[in-house]
């Protein structure tokens, strides 16, 4: 199981990094979503994997529980990464509507203007 989770994290990271290195805003947003999945699963996996051991306390009888702390961290991380994606989407929309294209790098001319 561990090898599957680890490789899934790796695949998601690879795809995410490749996409955030693209030159348009939309692939970057997709890439960030992939990276968010990867990071969330990675954080979750630091609690080690367990099957049929949810951290819901059982009143009767003994039960094993998986590590609840990474889950709590990841839960908020999922919601926050949604917020971040939304802000980014708004930025890229604004940039596209203002500039007429959705490339993310500045042209040489723009940076020179900036330096003056």
């Amino acid at each position, binding site marked *: 199981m561990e090898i599957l989770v680890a490789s899934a*994290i790796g695949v998601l990271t690879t*795809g995410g*990094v490749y996409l955030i290195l693209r030159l348009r805003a*939309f692939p970057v947003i997709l890439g960030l979503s*992939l990276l968010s*999945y990867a990071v969330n699963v*990675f954080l979750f996996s*630091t609690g*080690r994997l367990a099957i049929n051991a*949810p951290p819901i306390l059982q009143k009767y009888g003994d039960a094993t529980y998986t590590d609840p702390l990474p889950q709590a961290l990841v839960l908020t991380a999922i919601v926050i990464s949604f917020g971040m994606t939304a802000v980014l989407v708004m930025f890229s929309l604004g940039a596209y509507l203002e500039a007429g294209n959705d490339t993310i790098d500045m042209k040489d001319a723009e940076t020179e203007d900036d330096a003056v």
Partner: protein
Amino acid sequence: MTSESSFLPIIALLPFLGALIPGVMIRAGRTATATFTAVPTVLALVMLGVLAPGVLNGTVYTFSIPWLPQLGLEAAFFLDGLGLMFACMILGVGLLITLYARYYLSGEDPVGQFYTYLLLFQGAMLGIVISDNILLLLIFWELTSLSSFLLIGYWKHLPEGRQGARMALTVTGAGGLAMIGGMLILGNIAGSYNLTDILAAGDLIKASDWYTPAVILILLGAFTKSAQFPFHFWLPHAMAAPTPVSAYLHSATMVKAGVFLMARMWPALSGTELWFYLVATTGLVTMVIAAVIALFKDDLKGLLAFSTVSHLGLLTMLLGFGTEAAAIAAVFHILNHLTFKAALFMTAGIIDHEAHTRDIKRLGGLAKLMPITAVIGIVAALSMAGIPLFNGFLSKELMLEEASHTNWWENPWIVPVLATVGALFSVAYSLRFIFHVFGGPVRDDYPSKPHDPPMGMWLSPAFLCIFVVLIGVAPFLAEPVVNMAASAVTGHTTHAHLKIWHGLTPALYMSIIAVAGGAVLLLLHRPLDAAWIKAGPFYAKSAFDAVISGCVSLSRVISDNLHNGAISRYLAIFTAATVTAGYMAYLGGGIAPQTREMLPIAPVFAVGWVLLVCATGVVVFQHHMRYRALVVLGVIGLMVSAGFVFLSAPDLALTQISVETVTIMLLLLALHFLPKTTPVEKDTPRRLLDGAVALAAGVGVASLAYAFMTRDLDSISFYHLANSYKEGGGTNVVNVILVDFRGYDTYGEIIVLGIAGLVIFALMEALLSGPAGARLRNSGYNFDRSHDRHPLMMVVSTRVMMPIALMVGVYIFLRGHNQPGGGFVAGLVFSIALLMQYMASGFAWTMRRQQFEYHAMIGWGVVIAGLTGAGAWLSGTPFLTSAFGYVHIPPIEEFELATAALFDLGVFLCVLGAVMLMLYSLSRMARHAGETVNLEPLDYDPSRPAKMVEKGKA
């Protein structure tokens, strides 16, 4: 620690507290502002007066408030003889300057600001002289640099003022940085950051290998502050400040801070060869060079500035000699220099104020026009020249006496001769100040006809002149003070006897040579001056400017090349650097052996894995087709949620799946306005490189995750599992962590989410009112539309589902504390239920049927969560500790009431508000783009006759 000692922190704080008052009194006028500035100064002086008798008897008052004792950080103050003398000088002259500035500044200057800066500076200086902890001292040291920057640049409209302020800050700030290093080394050697301990550990420090770097670094700080050669150049440029500032900073305080520090550290550092050659030589060179330059300065304040540099050199040299007699001479001269130099600066200010020029070549004959000023100026200048019966003579004699028997590199002549030369030039420029300004015939070409100023302006320098003469005639009056301070410097009781006549000593002959030579030099001033101008002296400012512009262009080259505006490049560099750092850490540290067995692979999980990997592949390779990539992205989200379910994380699965839904809707809405395809990038090598970087990152993260999962780790989780029910009253440990154990984090996170929602709303508003809004209105986004955008089946089914969906939301919210669920998920479920209505029945129709303000919802969420947390204070427990109890109302089963549920309500409201505000903002853009507004829920309602849809109405 005695009760009087508790005055010390109050004395240090008073000026800072007082600084708040003049700043807000901007309209109260100069007199009121000056009065309120004087109040804290007088109070502090009174407290010092209470402590003074004790200090004179040799008591050292200490007071300390520990802060981080492990790091040696504490607010520790102490007052000994040296500190008392300096504190009185700082406050006393501060008071005189406050009075003087009241008349010097014009009504148009922002006087409140001036006095605020002045008090800030005064507080910083006071802090330096009464700190016991050297780290505290460093803070005050930097504060003097900052506040003096404000004072020097007070006349913001003058470019010289701004440049001078920058230069002073750069030089003294850089020195301060060096000193931090030196002080830390010193503290390490002594094993304590307390001055009293460090001073007692002098032998240990001098024997240490780190003595040399510590001395050099500390001296860099002291030399830059006290304007020693070659760092002297900032002081003359700081003369662009208003004269009260110059008089205060450059006679009594700022520049004396360096001298003070050398005196303070004297027992710990002095007495070695290194100290002698560094300090005494620098002082000697500074004294001579600055005295020579001063003679050729035509600007009155410039002359005084270089004379100050010269006298600071004299003090430095005396401290460098390392003998007790020299230390006594230094302390005495600190006192004398303060009196005559402050008076001279104020005189120069009066002349500038009345004659509207400070150029000596345009002045002369002022003795007849402004007799009071002339008397003050002449008395002070004679003291500066070192003429008998004025106090400057006494300390100069002591200095020459010390110089006369000092060998430099086994040569007995160098020091006495150079000291005499310095004194000679000192006489020459002092006499020039007298004869070229006050002497000579009255002229008729002054820019403004000068006359004596109002009494308030000459009172301060006149007061100082009383001391000049008093000490000059009856030097024994100063003995107690000098002995008190010198004892503190040297570390044992001194018995100095100050007198005018020492007999026919070498010092007397040197003095006579200096006075006679100085007079001759003045007579020859005209030809010498012409030669000086012809020689074109070297200006340190040009060198300084060259260095600064070199630094600026170097940093510009670096930043321009690093930051070329290509975000993708930054990201690539960042990723590569992170991967490399991780790899290096792995190489360096190795890895612990594997301690966990792998779980067997479940077939259903393997299927999910295959789906996830394929979906990722499609997203990456087909990302040009944006809709397709988006739909497939949903598959990945689903697989991740399913994985969470499988791996015992039901809460995560619920959150992930609802967030997934909202995210995809959001992206679909956004894609509505963006191009539907991404052009294929032509640059294949670049794509391969990016691919390599991405692969390295992926492999790195995967191996890290694998390594993590196959090794055990003790964490604090068992605590949460054990106490969740006992202390948090819930069996869903994840939820209890969120709302109780780590409630503070959650509170911060919902605020962040709320802010994100508001940011999106604000961005959208700004966009729509700008050119983007115009572009939107003129765009043709609405062409390829379905004619039946609100189909009957969808409207009916979503309306049936709405109450059920809300019910599910409530259920998930209520059970959250004990079963998977909670505020986060409930908020998302509610938003999805509402969103379905928007999608099915249209925006306008839905908006008219619900009355919530999303902004208010976010606000209420944060307020409710915050108040719930604060409620814990009422029961005396920390913020966000939850309380709970069990209630039984027949016929319902026993149920639990917990404040955590209230906190969760806050979370719920905030999440709902933020998510809805984000989507609302995006759909507002659609309406702006000319989206048709449907007033009816259905486009084609079978129960009504068909009619045209109203267009373009918002």
